[in-house]
């Protein structure tokens, strides 16, 4: 083994057999290692202790309203494309207690000890990393930050992975987020048969790897990886024309298009698209109280613009129809979001297509709106 100096930008070759050492190093540094696991015919993100915990040789078939795990040709660990679960739950938990108060003289806060978990995310895709970076803009702003998100985010270790086998609902090339990972990670993997190529993206990543010795990959191996990445781009079957976004979806003419009536007949307003979306950020606070009404808590939960109560003001719902709610979701995600946060709210992960029980292809909806407004 060569004695090499590694730095940011260096790519080393990590034999798969040594991957568990990397996980062990992370745990030794106080990280909880979380990654993909096969469970109940789907893929979920949860604790992983070893590479063996990952789904092996599994690929996914994905189409609007369709998801199936299938056995692939290889024995690789990252050939699948993620399922409904996303990393969002680790940074922006679906349920988190905000505070509890107890009745005394007036009301006083019950102090609770909360340890912020430090997560090492194993296998973050390009679209998923882009999604985390979008949520960073939402939850950590100069004028406001969400303490739960910020503390968890600041403690994060990210091991990204380049996608080599896009699924049928992927369109990250259109959104500029993949299949090759862009953005800030600590380490980024490209999976080959026996090794991972590991690119070092941060000082934190470098210092983790510096504990052990690694080979530099040969030019031949690098070349194979590049070819696989290039093929992944070609395999991307779906695309979204973003050239007229967000403008198209913010024009009053588009907001009144007949197409909304059409999609409203198909949309169930179930909110699946928002719950699987790695960038959707809406939340609500719910209240609970003990039996004697002497102690009360507030809990933050995920909300969805498809919930009828979401836009309720006294006297009624501002968006009482599915037409209005679907329009709000689509025109926010691919329209108004840009003005709010500087980018569109979509990274092309395709979850909202795959997990729509009504098989709505949102890209086709945008195309139909475009055709109607600009005949």
């Amino acid at each position, binding site marked *: 083994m060569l004695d090499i100096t590694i730095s940011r930008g260096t790519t080393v070759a990590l034999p798969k057999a040594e991957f568990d050492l990397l996980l062990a190093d992370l745990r030794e540094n106080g990280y909880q290692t979380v990654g993909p696991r096969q469970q109940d015919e789907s893929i979920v993100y949860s604790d992983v202790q070893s590479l063996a915990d990952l789904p092996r040789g599994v690929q996914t078939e994905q189409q609007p309203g369709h998801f199936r795990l299938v056995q692939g040709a290889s024995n690789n660990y990252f050939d699948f494309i993620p399922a409904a679960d996303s990393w969002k739950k680790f940074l922006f938990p679906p349920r988190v207690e905000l505070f509890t108060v107890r009745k005394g003289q007036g009301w006083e806060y019950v102090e609770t000890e909360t340890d912020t978990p430090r997560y090492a995310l194993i296998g973050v895709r390009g679209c998923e990393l882009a999604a985390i970076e979008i949520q960073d803009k939402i939850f950590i702003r100069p004028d406001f930050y969400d303490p739960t998100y910020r503390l968890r985010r600041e403690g994060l270790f990210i091991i990204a992975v380049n996608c080599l086998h896009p699924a049928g609902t992927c369109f990250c090339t259109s959104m500029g987020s993949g299949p090759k990972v862009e953005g800030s990670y600590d380490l980024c993997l490209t999976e080959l048969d026996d090794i991972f190529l590991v690119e070092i993206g941060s000082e934190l990543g470098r210092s983790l790897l510096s504990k052990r010795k690694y080979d530099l990959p040969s030019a031949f191996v690098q070349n194979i990886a590049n070819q696989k990445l290039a093929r992944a781009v070609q395999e991307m079957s779906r695309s979204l024309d973003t050239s007229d976004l967000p403008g198209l979806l913010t024009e009053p003419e588009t907001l*009144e298009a007949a197409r909304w009536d059409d999609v409203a007949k198909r949309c169930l307003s179930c909110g699946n698209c928002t719950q699987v979306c790695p960038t959707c950020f809406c939340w609500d606070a719910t209240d609970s109280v003990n039996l004697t009404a002497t102690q009360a808590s507030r809990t933050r939960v995920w909300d969805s613009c498809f919930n009828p109560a979401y836009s309720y003001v006294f006297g009624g719902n501002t968006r009482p129809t599915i037409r209005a709610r679907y329009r709000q979701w689509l025109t926010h995600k691919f329209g108004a979001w840009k003005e709010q946060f500087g980018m569109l709210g979509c990274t092309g992960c395709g979850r909202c297509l795959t997990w729509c029980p009504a098989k709505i292809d949102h890209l086709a909806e945008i195309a139909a709106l475009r055709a109607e407004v600009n005949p």
Partner: protein
Amino acid sequence: MTSLLPQSAPPTAGHPGRLIQPDWAEIVRITPETEGISTFWLRFIDPQVRERYHFQPGQFNMLYLPGYGESAISMSSDPEDEERLVGHTIRFVGTVTKNIGRLKVGDVLGVRGPFGTSWPMKQIEGRDLVLACGGIGLPPLRPAIYHIIRNREKYGKVTLLYGARTPKDLMYPDEHEEWKRHDIQMEISVDRGDENWDGRVGVVPMWFYNFRIDPRNTAVLTCGPEIMIRFVIYEGLARRIPAERIFVSLERNMKCGQGSCGHCQIGPYFICKDGPVFPFSVLQRYVNVEEY
């Protein structure tokens, strides 16, 4: 477009390091206004919060009643109140406000705020003002009225157009004479009168017909039911008052007050952060999109 909007200052009540965690305030006084509406006068229990808390006319607080939740309420009192009390005129309609309605003097509420943009009192100095409001739309304008009275020489002709459903629904009747004394022309109307009502019967937007307005030098501040606001805007624009000088205060489902929870969006704006007060020019493209 966002740059057109004034930035609101960070809230001074509520714990910055904890999400939506309020400070406590004691109810010092409760003033019944009309049927189902009272003004709650609050004083922060923590003297430091009391000292640093200051709001601008048109801003709102999130009031928290443990076990029930929070409600967004505009301040209706004088921002320069000598006792440093903060007044909230509350209509008892939802779960939270109905239960606030059961509280007594001495009870405690959680408060976060102040949130949102304010009436542009500085920007409209030197102009004639038309304050057009209806129903529960008067309380958010009352701090602006106090400000105008305190700085009366800085504004031209000031007209308050105020509409209510019936004469008994008119709010703050004890103060109307005082406002007139400070040269605020009061034009009050009700939707339905009876034989004992010798004031006007009609609706707020129609009064634009009756006044000579200098559109080059008039600013409109309007607050009330969305339908009334729309017609005030139509009449104001018909009188050639530019959209940039018609300021509206909007209501939506507000939960966090900081443009984070998503509920109060209209187009690219979070009403709780970019509003509630907007120049109509930035809302123009959305105002006639139904259910938007």
